[in-house]
């Protein structure tokens, strides 16, 4: 381990790539019965990782070239799969985001999961999640990325299905795993395509070669499309988007982690990671752009009608991810990554705030929370409003800046349809997020809140004893991360220029595409800005008219179109379609046919042969009298005959 001590950068990277794994192992093997200790180990590990990530970010801020470390993980014939670290601007930024969000979520969970019987297990899985995600982020090669990508999927399966005694939770975990696995098959085949067509899976090599045109265009297009399948699965793009809303079955901090910095962000990260490679194939970019647009619009419509507070944020995540994919596919490298960054912050904020409400009122229904007196919890209420403002893209919150950047990119795209879609998306986002806020802020029937509160408490098995005062350490463990995130959301937008010069300073690859994005602050730009903001404000106002205003019916305009409302509420019947397809093809189709074949044809044939043999034996068994000496006589006679035949 001498080499570790000599290179602090390597030590830091190494810490990020091993400590959470060790903490998981230690918790699962040794400290499962000791909840506090397990929690301390996990939080300690993630704190060290956070420190390491910040250290790396600061020391390598001005590094002229990406720092790369590699060891051979597997050597088979001429194929070498390395394990290592690629520390460049993008990966360090993402590493920091992951570490920060994981850290905050873990701290928050001390409060949220307090008293849960599976507390240790929860922290072990959190560590696994952090480990997989961080090691994926700093992967130098596609295969390592794929490996940890799969592990992220595993960790999310475990965390989504955390309340495994609930059938729906385990179902949701399974669904998430299988659906993302479906996309991963494409990803895997894409990697093989690149391997066969180009022969090198180093991310930097791939990017350079694709840009320089060293890879056959067909390979690039096919590879990019197949790899995009992985993005579709992981980042819940159309048509594999339905697992994400179901994934709300996990504990709320898990949703926050899943939706902001890990799991779903992995897809967008992958796309930006090999952005030059994608950019080398206009066809793949076009497909991605269309898919992103469809996803964004579809998911927004779904958010119109649900009353589940977490579901709203889930749909909004899907739609924002679609937005990021649109940006990347339209060539806006920085805008996509910037939105990924700001979104990580405010989406974590939104989920964690919702978590406080859910923890307090033991319901996910926004109307119930409103009636229960949700607005009296000032800190989360204010923070959630901040998050919603950022999500809606209102100045001066971080979401405003990143959305503007993306809209700028879309404006530069020759096909203005995408810009229109983007603006429409902004309007819808503002509408549904404030629909939720107003539901909580202006409840209609004010049922006796205190009584309700009491009842809910008794009925639920959370077992925490924060009694009358909500402001015990449980509450503060949850409140502090929320406040930190709210501050970040407020401030982050103003660092757009710093972030941009940081990210692009080193990526000349992506720079070409940024020209359009940051071309000039001409009249068109201001026009766009004004349009976008007014649309967002319009959305908020529309939501106020329908849900906030004293005389508002709180029904929503969709109530007038029941067919459309049904369509939205049933997620455009996508789940029904999958269910049917699964039943028809898998359960009733292949499974049934193959099983029958096994029983009837193969086994039937074998058993038939056996029966025939046994029957034949029966038929001639009358010769067998059971008398020993008859057999002997027969034998002697036979020998005699043989002697006669051969001797004569």
């Amino acid at each position: 381990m001498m080499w570790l001590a000599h290179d602090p950068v390597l030590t830091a990277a190494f810490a990020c790539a091993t400590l959470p794994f060790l903490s998981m192992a230690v918790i699962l093997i040794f400290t499962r019965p000791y909840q506090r200790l397990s929690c301390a180990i996990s939080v300690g590990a993630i704190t060290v990782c956070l420190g390491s990530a910040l250290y790396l970010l600061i020391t390598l801020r001005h590094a002229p070239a990406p720092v790369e470390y590699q060891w051979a993980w597997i050597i088979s014939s001429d194929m070498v799969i390395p394990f290592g670290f690629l520390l460049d601007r993008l990966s360090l930024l993402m590493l920091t985001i992951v570490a920060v969000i994981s850290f905050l979520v873990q701290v928050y969970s001390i409060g949220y999961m307090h008293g849960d019987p599976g507390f240790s297990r929860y922290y072990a899985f959190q560590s696994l999640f952090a480990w997989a995600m961080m090691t994926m982020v700093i992967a130098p090669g596609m295969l390592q990325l794929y490996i940890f990508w799969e592990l992220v999927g595993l960790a999310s399966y475990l965390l989504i299905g955390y309340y495994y005694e609930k059938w729906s939770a385990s179902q949701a975990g399974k669904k998430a795993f299988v659906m993302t696995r479906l996309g991963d098959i494409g990803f895997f085949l894409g990697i093989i395509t690149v391997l066969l067509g180009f022969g090198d899976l180093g991310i930097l090599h791939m990017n350079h070669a694709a840009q320089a045109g060293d890879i056959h265009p067909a390979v690039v297009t096919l590879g990019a499309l197949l790899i995009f399948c992985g993005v579709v699965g992981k980042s819940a793009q159309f048509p594999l988007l339905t697992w994400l809303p179901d994934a709300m079955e996990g504990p709320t901090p898990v949703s926050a982690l899943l939706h902001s910095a890990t799991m779903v962000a992995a897809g967008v990260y992958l796309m930006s990671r090999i952005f030059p490679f994608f950019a080398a194939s206009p066809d793949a970019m076009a497909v991605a752009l269309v898919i992103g647009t469809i996803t964004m619009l579809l998911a927004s419509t779904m958010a119109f009608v649900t009353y589940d507070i977490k579901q709203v944020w889930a749909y909004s995540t899907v739609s924002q991810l679609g937005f990021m994919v649109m940006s990347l596919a339209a060539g806006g490298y920085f805008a996509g990554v910037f939105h990924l960054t700001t979104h990580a912050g405010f989406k974590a904020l939104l989920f964690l705030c919702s978590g406080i409400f859910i923890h307090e009122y033991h319901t996910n229904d926004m109307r119930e929370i409103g009636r229960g007196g949700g607005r009296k919890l000032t800190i989360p209420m204010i923070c959630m409003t901040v998050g919603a403002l950022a999500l809606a893209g209102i100045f001066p919150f971080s979401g405003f800046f990143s959305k503007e950047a993306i809209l700028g990119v879309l404006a530069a795209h020759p096909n203005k349809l995408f810009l229109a879609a983007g603006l429409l998306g902004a309007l819808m986002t503002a509408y549904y997020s404030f629909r939720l806020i107003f539901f909580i802020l202006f409840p209609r029937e004010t049922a006796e809140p205190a009584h309700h509160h009491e009842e809910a408490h008794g009925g639920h098995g959370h077992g925490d004893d924060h009694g009358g005062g909500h402001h015990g350490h449980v509450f503060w463990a949850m409140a502090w991360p929320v406040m930190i995130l709210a501050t970040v959301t407020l401030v982050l937008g103003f660092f757009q220029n710093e972030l941009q010069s940081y990210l692009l300073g080193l990526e000349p690859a992506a720079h070409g595409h940024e020209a359009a994005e940051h071309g000039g602050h001409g009249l068109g730009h201001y026009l766009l800005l004004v349009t976008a903001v007014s649309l967002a404000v319009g959305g908020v106002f529309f939501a106020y008219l329908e849900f906030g205003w004293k005389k508002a019916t709180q029904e929503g305009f969709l109530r007038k179109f029941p067919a459309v409302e049904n369509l939205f509420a049933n997620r455009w019947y996508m789940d029904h379609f999958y269910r049917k397809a699964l039943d028809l093809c898998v359960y009733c189709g292949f499974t049934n046919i193959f099983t029958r074949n096994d029983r009837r044809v193969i086994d039937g044939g074998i058993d038939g042969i056996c029966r025939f043999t046994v029957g034949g034996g029966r038929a001639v068994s009358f010769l067998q009298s059971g008398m020993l000496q008859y057999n002997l006589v027969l034998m002697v006679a036979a020998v005699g005959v043989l002697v006669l035949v051969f001797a004569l």
Partner: protein
Amino acid sequence: MLMTAMEFAQFPILSAILFSTLLALLVILFIPDDRPKLVKQVSLGFAALGLALSLYVYFAFDPQKGGLQFVERVLWVKSLGIYYFLAADGINVPMILLTAVVLFTGVLTMWELEKRVKEYFALTYLLVAGVYGVFMSMDLFFIFVWYDVSLFPMYPLIAIWGSTRKEYGAMKLTLYLLAGSALILPGILYLWAVAGGTTFDLFELQRLGFDVQVQRIAFVMLYLGFGILAGVWPFHTWSPVGHVAAPTAVSMIHAGVLMKLGAYGILRVGMTLCPEGLVYWSDLMALLATIGIVYGAFVGLAQTDLKYVIGYSSVSHMGIVGLGLATMTVDGINGAVFQMFSHGIMTALFFSAVGYIYDKTHTKMIPELGGLSKTMPKASAFFILAAFCGIGVPCMSSFWAELLVFISAVKTYPVRGILAVSGLVVSALFMLRVVQKTFYGDKNPKWEHIPDVPLFLASPRIILVGILIFFGLFPRLILDIIQSAVVPFVNSL
């Protein structure tokens, strides 16, 4: 590879492993019937000895040098050219280690056995001696003899200690495997006779070489013969039935090690002696393997018996081995051998985990179980980990094997390769379905009284999980050894 008639480079470690097993058999036979505890202790002692010796082989084997190591070669019957020829190379070192591990954990798993303990362990040791013999021998005659030695004890082991249609399962298994041997023996004798009837030495025969036509005929006989044992579709139906019927540790040895004998035989005998035959039949091999992978996963989806599910997953996973062999590339065969090893450990873990559950609940029907994670979280965790390994979760050893096989399969047979890769979704679906239905869900009052598995009884599973994860994190520790044999092997094709 010129060798004198007798050559002992060092202490005959391979013979020591082989004969310690037979010695164990003898010793167990002389222990009085009424001392089952002693039988178990002696069995465990010999299993530990075997494990220690095979660990020594694993560590002492030098992958840099490659080739045959620990060679022991004695002329046995001069007129027929039979040699007592044991050696270790990169392909069988992992197999020997696998056998030792599965035997050791199998003995631990059966610690609570009460019925005819002495006979059970004696037969197990006979079985394992046969397995060791096949893995170590480099002489066709001995390969065949040991192969048959390993088949025979299966019948009583299943018929006496088994469950669920045990007579049917035992009979079916025996008939299938003997049918396999009936193909292997003429295959071997055919090659022997064509080569002049002077030697059974594998490498001598390889050097002599065979006519293309001869190779084609012999290869298909050997492929089908060994393939039956390897669970090649459509000769796989004995395996789920046999697994279900067999007692826990026999299932472990059977699915974990015995099925590998088949794949190993194809590789060691068929592919070494008949490379031209392999080239000719490889298309068919790849096709059958791909069908096996997808088919096994789909049929597994419909099963309601835990052990049937594992049985069909074995069919699917052994398909991956077959696919790797059929690619005839270094990566593919590396992956196939690695998969043999990790699948062995994985299924042993599966059966061991199910064994505990079955012992306590007396059922292995999935609809009757459910919510087991609540009452016995540790016992469930082992099964769930095995299921993850079966799905091909990274950082568990079978992931690497599958990765290598699939990469080379897509390269060599694009369509079949892609089909096989898509089978991964189905296998994920069926594994997770079983995990969900058996272990998740609300607490089942029927099983509430069952204690979680104590540390000693969990120890075999801990060892197996440890191995899976260890080689998953550090795959080179085993892949370099495998590679040292596979590279020259493929170059000689």
